[in-house]
């Protein structure tokens, strides 16, 4: 059976890369002594996969890991056993068994939500500038994101982009976004942030902005009838 775990990571542990995060979870499984299944061969390894690699520096409240286990395990019990040996900063918040024919987590990904905290020397003025840039971005049909390898139009992949009202965040500038992910059109939040900084109102402001926190909130899969639902929702299992 395959169990899908939803996990969060917060604090200093966010500076781990994806491969190190995987190695971390493998050790957690060993420590907990839960009955994971292994590959064949001289150096058997756990059959573990992740929905969406977590970048260095990114926090998450809703990432997913699939683990192949011996049949008959109760997902919630395994979750408790894993949480009992987990490090501070990483926590599993939900566990569900996949149906036999479920898509693997990575293939199922269709979208993700994020929040970004932006540092600016003059937060009040900065907020206005970012707010204007967000509007500029949403108003255009084409937004070209330049990456090292290519340049692509990410506008169709921006499902939502909002700036948090001032009263909720004190001195911080916080934006939230809902972005297309996965094989069709993958919009990376860092690319979107970089592109945001090229908007006319930012460029003309003379202010400098820095990303101080990037947090993924949820990863979604697409149901048969075309809805985006969290990856542990019954309709995408």
């Amino acid at each position, binding site marked *: 059976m395959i169990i899908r775990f939803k996990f969060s990571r917060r*604090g200093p542990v966010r*500076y781990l890369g994806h491969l*190190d995060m995987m190695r971390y979870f*493998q*050790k957690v499984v*060993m420590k907990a002594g839960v009955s994971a299944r292994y590959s064949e061969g001289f150096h058997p390894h756990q059959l573990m996969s992740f929905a969406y690699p977590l970048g260095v*520096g990114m926090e998450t409240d809703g990432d997913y890991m699939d683990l192949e286990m011996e049949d008959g395990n109760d997902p919630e019990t395994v979750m408790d056993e894993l949480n009992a040996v987990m*490090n501070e900063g990483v926590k599993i918040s939900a566990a569900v068994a996949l149906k036999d024919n479920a898509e693997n987590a990575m293939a199922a990904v269709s979208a993700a939500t994020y929040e970004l905290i932006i540092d600016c020397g003059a937060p009040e003025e900065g907020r206005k500038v970012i707010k204007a840039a967000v509007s500029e971005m949403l108003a255009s049909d084409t937004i070209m994101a330049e990456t090292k390898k290519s340049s692509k139009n990410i506008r169709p992949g921006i499902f939502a982009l909002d700036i948090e009202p001032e009263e909720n965040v004190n001195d911080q500038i916080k934006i939230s976004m809902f972005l297309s992910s996965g094989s069709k059109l993958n919009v990376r939040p860092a690319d979107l942030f970089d592109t945001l900084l090229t908007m006319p109102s930012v460029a003309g402001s003379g202010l400098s902005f*820095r990303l101080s926190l990037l947090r993924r909130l949820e990863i979604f899969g697409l149901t048969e009838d075309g809805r985006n639902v969290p990856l542990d929702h019954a309709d995408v299992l």
Partner: protein
Amino acid sequence: MIVKAEDRKLALTHEILMSIDKPSRYTGGEPNSVMKDPDKTKVRFVMCFPDVYEIGMSHLGIQILYGMFNSWEDVWCERVYSPWTDLDKIMRDRKIPLFSLESQRPVKDADFLGITIQYEMCYTNILQILDLADIPFYSKDRTDADPIVIGGGPCIYNTEPIADFFDIFYIGEGEVRYRELLDLYEECREAGIGREEFLKRAVAIEGIYVPSLYDVTYDENMRFVSMEPKYDFVPARIKKQLVKDMNEAFYPTAPVVPFIRATQDRAVIEVQRGCIRNCRFCQAGQIYKPVRERSVDYLLDHAKAILKNTGYEELSLSSLSTSDYTGLKRLLEELIDYCSQKKINISLPSLRIDAFSLDVMNKVQDIKKSSVTFAPEAGSQRMRNVINKGLTKEDILNGAEMAFRGGWNKVKLYFMLGLPFEEHEDAEAIAVLCNDIAKVYFDTVPKEERKGSVQITASSSFFVPKPFTAFQWAPMNKPEEFLEKAKITKAAVRAQLNQKRISYHYHDCGTTIIEGVLARGDRRLSASIEYVYRHGAIFDAWTETFSYENWIKAFEETGVDYEDYIFRTRPDDEEFPWDFIDSGVRKEFLLREWKNASMAKKSSNCREQCMGCGCTGFGCGVCVE
């Protein structure tokens, strides 16, 4: 209050962390790292391995001391490693003080900075640590606002080149005297006694060496003459401290597990300490004498606990010569049984190749991918007698034949060049030995059974004479001699019938020369080390950052005749700067071995027959078996 690892405020900003390689080298919070309440501990001890995180985290000694210190309620032990060159630059530019991983607080505020000194080529990194921490380089310039800087590890068997940089050296194994030292420190602090008086009192503890309490004299050629205590209460000789019963000593069952892949990324059990072999080139073989084993039951219990507490998927056995461990058969059988159930790999140390080790290797490794390893260290039998390496050509060829019959076809061989009394034909003999092994393969394995062909990989390093070995009197080869010998070996390999099956590599010799100077130098070298550091030397153990020319210039600029330390045969009666250390092994014994080497005369190992080295005085281990 204990701050949780996840709530710690990091010393580096998000922006800095995102701009450097492997930021989690600096963020701490790894599984089994220890957070304590600073208000409820009396001593903050920052333990340092002066190299990059992945190297430092692979070191067993720090894990032992970290676990032991943190098992004491009054002590909080934290870790720090050398910031890599990318962060080093940022910390200098922005004046960010060096911080410990756990609390993320400045190292300068600690009570102790303990530095483990594992190889000579980390000496400039010691200055980097002090520099970034804003601690004066020289002990004499420090005040009560600075931590006590204490050094340990194998390089303290010649402390003198770095003696001026340390307040204390701890001579021997850390498990033994630290409690006494920290008790004294707490006592002094409660009584309002400062660092100077504390250091004077500390020398009453066995194994504690305070370099500033000695005067060193040199002759008209600036050669070392003597080192005398400045006061009556300072001991003239410092006795090595060692654990007498390895089954009673502290061993961590919950070592810190690095998040990023360390060089040694696995659970480790130390099966024994010391070595019976008496190889004449080997410093570890002498300074960790006598060999002391742990019981099989102790090791099994600890292995299981460590695996449980870390989640490691691989276990390795550590010692200088694991084949000599008397309980090896039962230990490996039980470990293989346990680990195969738990899907844990066993990483074998290089074992003496025989029926038993091949059987074990067959069980835990994929024959197709693995190789058998021999360390003859020298090519000819005469040279192996000179260095007292017990392995014979017959052992190697028989072992290889057995391995070939068992299905292996890869052989690795390790050699040294530049050994004392070495001739050109000894360098050629390396090639002949490789060729003979290939021949054994073709004679042993019928053509139709050959899967791929035999691959022989030989590599040689250049020899550095070390203190407390029979070769402490020996001259080193000059760089051109090293390279000439490597060329002879290379040419000889090319002249062999089976040359296509042999690949030969040799290591760089620039590092070797500098290592040689630092290994047998004296206190005058501290100025050279400071000079080279101030002129950009750092991470000298790394080829990409090491500069030979920088070092040679530093010796010249500081008026040190470096050649005098390494290229001459030292007279039998020369006083060495390290003679004040009582390692248990007597100088007369080493001198006798030096003479035996010159006659290519073999000596026995400690189990065959006692050589009378002097270590029986410790009354433990193989000496009392």
